[in-house]
């Protein structure tokens, strides 16, 4: 018990409901089932983030949803200390599929993050909206 009291609290941050559009609704429907989807171009084969109906890399190739394990490494992060709900970490994860994803890091102390650390997606509930992807160290 005393050990946990001495350690800094693990970061968490209330997250508002995300904006869901006709273009991104399948992502959020899957998120509600705990599945993390990314989009991949059928023409050039590259995955991208955030999800789009047309590939940003080639000349507008159509894209398809695919389920991702949601694993990758921290590209960079910053722990925001000026926050009424306590420190929280924002940063980018480079997914194993290639794209970088902006996110919050959770389940880790403010001084527990490092560039290159492996992380995995989990879903955090929001008020009145679908759960959103956040990442925690594996």
């Amino acid at each position: 018990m005393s050990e946990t009291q001495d350690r800094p609290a693990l970061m968490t941050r209330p997250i508002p409901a995300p904006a869901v559009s006709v273009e991104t609704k399948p992502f959020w429907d899957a998120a509600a089932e705990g599945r993390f989807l990314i989009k991949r171009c059928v023409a050039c084969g590259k995955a991208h983030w955030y999800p789009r109906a047309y590939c940003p890399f080639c000349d507008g190739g159509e894209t398809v949803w695919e389920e991702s394990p949601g694993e990758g490494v921290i590209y960079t992060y910053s722990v925001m200390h000026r926050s009424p709900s306590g420190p929280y970490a924002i940063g980018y994860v480079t997914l194993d599929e290639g794209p970088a994803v902006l996110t919050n890091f959770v389940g880790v102390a403010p001084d527990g993050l490092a560039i290159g650390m492996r992380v995995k997606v989990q879903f955090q509930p929001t008020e009145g909206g679908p759960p959103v992807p956040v990442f925690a160290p594996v």
Partner: protein
Amino acid sequence: MSIKGKAYIMGAYEHPLRDAPDTSTPQLHMECALGALADAGLSKDDVDGYFCAGDAPGFGGLSMIDYMGLKNVRHMDSTETGGSSYIVHVGHAAQAIAAGKCQVALITLAGRPRHGGARPGGSMRGPAAAPGALSDGPPEAGFENIYGGSTHNTYGMCAMRHMYEHGTTSEQLAWIKVAASHHAQWNEHAFLKDVVTVEQVVNSRMISDPLHLLDCCVVTDGGGALIVTSPEIARTLKRPKVKIIGAGEAPKSPLGGQGLDLTYSGAVWSGPRAFAEAGVKPADIKYASIYDSFTITVLMQIEDLGFCEKGQGGRFVSDGGLISGVGKLPFNTDGGGLCNNHPTNRGGITKVIEAVRQLRGEAHPKVQVKNCDLAIAHGTGGSLGTRHASATVVLEREA
């Protein structure tokens, strides 16, 4: 110079839908763009000019450039005049092409008023739709705005990565604030006039790792204005003449997130474009106004503009490297955004104003650069950590 005969409309496309329940507004913009490009027989990578108005979701075209994956844009225009915007854009595109600022301009319009689409002119961080309702705002909104991103922490992310890749230190970043404070002490209007030390900067309160309170610019009210005239008018006026001899601009965004690199800014493109038009090199510049929302902003842009090698910015700014009369590159001699002024969180105009003072020889005598005949003003708008636009102008004193 006239636009007459300098530009042609070579692609045109009208979207076939009149009711679009299942297609987002960004998607409609993209489909229109692809249609017009196909009509012209061009590809997305040929586009180097992008024009949109308030119907384009997001921030001044940056969201749409990112969404569509336009990676070669070197001229942007988001003039908003309601329904006539796109005719204004045709004229502006012809001007840009006549001036050599772009060769292939894309103009898009799209929206979904039948399905509650966002009204033109909405803000970058517009509210999400009512709980449960579908939104039609900036395409990145649902995947970015929810994570508590601010200027502080998105620039903090850049600083963190720069430190990781190049060994840049907090002490090196602090030298940028120290230099600004040395200049601000002579500016009677500066918001912060006290000279600070490296120790004071690195010991100030942590705002967002690794940026401390004194790594951040001030928040101020106020404003500024500029008058740009033709050579004919300039000759009739009594003030010293500051000639615009080069200008470059460039957006930078994640563009789908493959190969994300937050250690450089759009200045790697806007700077060389401006220098090339002016026919000068970074080493020729006597004074530099460099956007300083944060210390890291200055460091990255100095590298990107070519004042030093990538990764060497920390060494370049240390030991007074940016202090007028002391260092290699006198910068922000008004005290900059870090100490003097950052009116309504937009520092671009004060950057031009101090460059004009320097070229006129009207900066404070304690910071006036001797024989200052060539200067730049450079800025970044948006966020270095997500999507931004860089702009560089080269200015010359005319005897």
